[in-house]
């Protein structure tokens, strides 16, 4: 039974996730990016918890807890710590200006909506709309990865992409293995953060700017 309030609440959570995705997109400072990402993860946690309650699927609380603890709290702290420890530039280096990126982001949301809504006509309205929002979040995560040069912003882009996936997975009624998948993804994320620090990309490459990493191809001598 879906009352309107249940419907509205899941929309609210989904829309907050999407909005936070845009906030990640327009930040000029790394700390701002981390905060926006934390907000997005908290919204995902709220969405998952709400789905757990309204679908009566207690295992989704685990997903919510993972999103809350790992991505809402631990990851931003770790990122902050890495930035300080490796002494990385605090400003976001963009490959494309902020304005055009925002426009592209809006375009991607339109694209996702146009893509998802027609093919899911027979699904429940809530599922369709959550899926459209989730795909938008995924695409915006991509956009962050493409248009931001620092490796660390790319990592945040990847994590927000993953937030979109969690949103999709919890929005589909009765999807099994969601918890297992979010654990697998947490492993991936922990690995990424560990990787940045352990590889000391900053020390090795002087900069986390991927452009200067990619200038090296192993074939020039």
């Amino acid at each position, binding site marked *: 039974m879906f009352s309107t309030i249940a419907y509205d609440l899941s929309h609210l959570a989904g829309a907050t996730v999407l909005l936070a995705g845009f906030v990640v997109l327009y930040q000029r400072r790394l700390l701002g990016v981390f905060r926006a990402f934390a907000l997005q993860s908290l919204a995902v946690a709220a969405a998952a918890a709400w789905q757990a309650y309204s679908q009566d699927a207690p295992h989704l609380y685990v997903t919510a807890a993972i999103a809350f603890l790992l991505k809402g709290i631990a990851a931003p702290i770790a990122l902050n710590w890495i930035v300080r420890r490796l002494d990385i530039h605090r400003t976001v280096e963009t490959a494309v200006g902020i304005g055009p990126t925002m426009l592209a982001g809006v375009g991607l949301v339109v694209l996702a909506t146009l893509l998802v809504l027609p093919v899911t006509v027979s699904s429940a309205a809530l599922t369709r709309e959550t899926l459209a929002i989730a795909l938008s979040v995924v695409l915006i995560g991509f956009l962050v990865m493409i248009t931001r040069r620092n490796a660390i912003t790319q990592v945040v882009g990847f994590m927000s992409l993953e937030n979109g996936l969690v949103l999709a997975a919890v929005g*589909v009624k009765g999807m099994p293995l969601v918890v297992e998948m979010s654990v697998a993804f947490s492993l991936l994320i922990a690995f990424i953060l560990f*990787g940045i620090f352990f590889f000391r990309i900053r020390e090795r490459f002087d900069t986390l700017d991927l452009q200067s990493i990619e200038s090296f*191809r*192993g074939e020039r001598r």
Partner: protein
Amino acid sequence: MNALFLILGIPLAGAAVLALVPDHRLGGWINAGVSLATLVASLLLLPFEAPDPTPFALVDDFNIYLIVLTSFVAFTAAWFSAGYIAHEVGSGRLTPTYLRFYHAMYQVLSFAMLLALIANNIGVMWAAIELATLTTVVMVSLYRSRAALEAAWKYFILGSVGIALALFGTILVYLAAQKAMGPGMDALTWSQLYAEAPNFEPELLNLAFVFLLIGYGTKTGLVPLHAWLPDAHAEGPTPISAVLSGLLLNVALYAIVRFKMLLTANGDALAPGPLLIAMGLASLFTAALMLYRRRDIKRLFAYSSIEHMGVITFAFGMGGPLANFAGLLHMALHSLTKSAIFYAVGLASQARGSQQIDQIKGLTASHPALGWALVAGTVAISGLPPFGLFMSEFLLITSTFPRAPILGVLLLLGLLIAFGGLMLRLHGIAFGEADGDRRPLTGSLLPVYAHLILILIAGIFLPGPLVAWFQSVAEMVG
């Protein structure tokens, strides 16, 4: 069933043991021994009648040959690795501590690949491929050099994005199935999905397939998602390059083909063929042209892997019994040939102290046994008779021409360009005056010869039962 537990259990137990073995030489041989045990366990499957699928495992004609192939190449690669790695420690490129890690990871990688092949669940398959990606990232970065870290990072980011998209596709498949099958684990289980496929919502299935193709296609190294592949092959330890090219690419392609079968079974969904054909041809041409200007020998053969993955994808895209037959055969033979080449390349770069082609020049003069083995391997991989890949490519071309002449011409052209590139480079590697370092060979050539003999036999004579069996799988893939 017991054999399956052994196939998955042995590598896992092996990983645990290897993590505790301090001596790297001993570790290397234990690693080979564990892989041999896995191979024996997978051979237990062979007197084969398809067992009933369980919620956990699905073994049918299609994946059993990949299971055996995977455990076989994993074994020869471990065998080769034992000698190779000892030399790397001797020359100071690796420290023994890393090797403990390396050997444990090697077994985790075997486990992950075998799990992805065996799993009867699209979620478990996804997680297994993710695990395989993570372990290979770690292995690629093993040398800790700047280039190795760059390669690992690139592989990591692109691989993760691929994995993420594949998961979105997986969720969409579930959603497409939900209407017909209701919520629950059944809608993620291969054997159930195939039974119910005609009732799925075709539009959702289409969208899902696009995500899955891009996601797993990244792991297969299909153009334009291939950027990680040459770097990862070139900068990691050579046994891992062999496993990546020979096995992991196949596993990702296996996933794509499985989902393609789902679309075919549905009937109303879009025909996946043209998508696969387009990506296959793009990979073939891009990689073939890239072969010409390679200076690094491992990069050269990495591009050749992209080319062959393109050919196989093309074959499955064409579909039909003959093209599928060619694709399946090509998958197996490419695996065997390419891993043999990488073993030879690994020995060559150790013997000559460089991966640069102009440093390796004149290999047949300085190390005849190795040099000619590499020549034979390269001749085989460029699709010349009498080796097996000639047969599969010939079969693919002849089956394509009557159905789509233009595609046939394109395929032939791409193969010829690749052939030219490989021959040009082979000439530089194998012949000419050998200058620079000439160290004695450090590892055994036996794994190389074993693979070469197998592909030679496959090129001359395929046993009747094997042909019949390939045909039945080709029918099944549709």
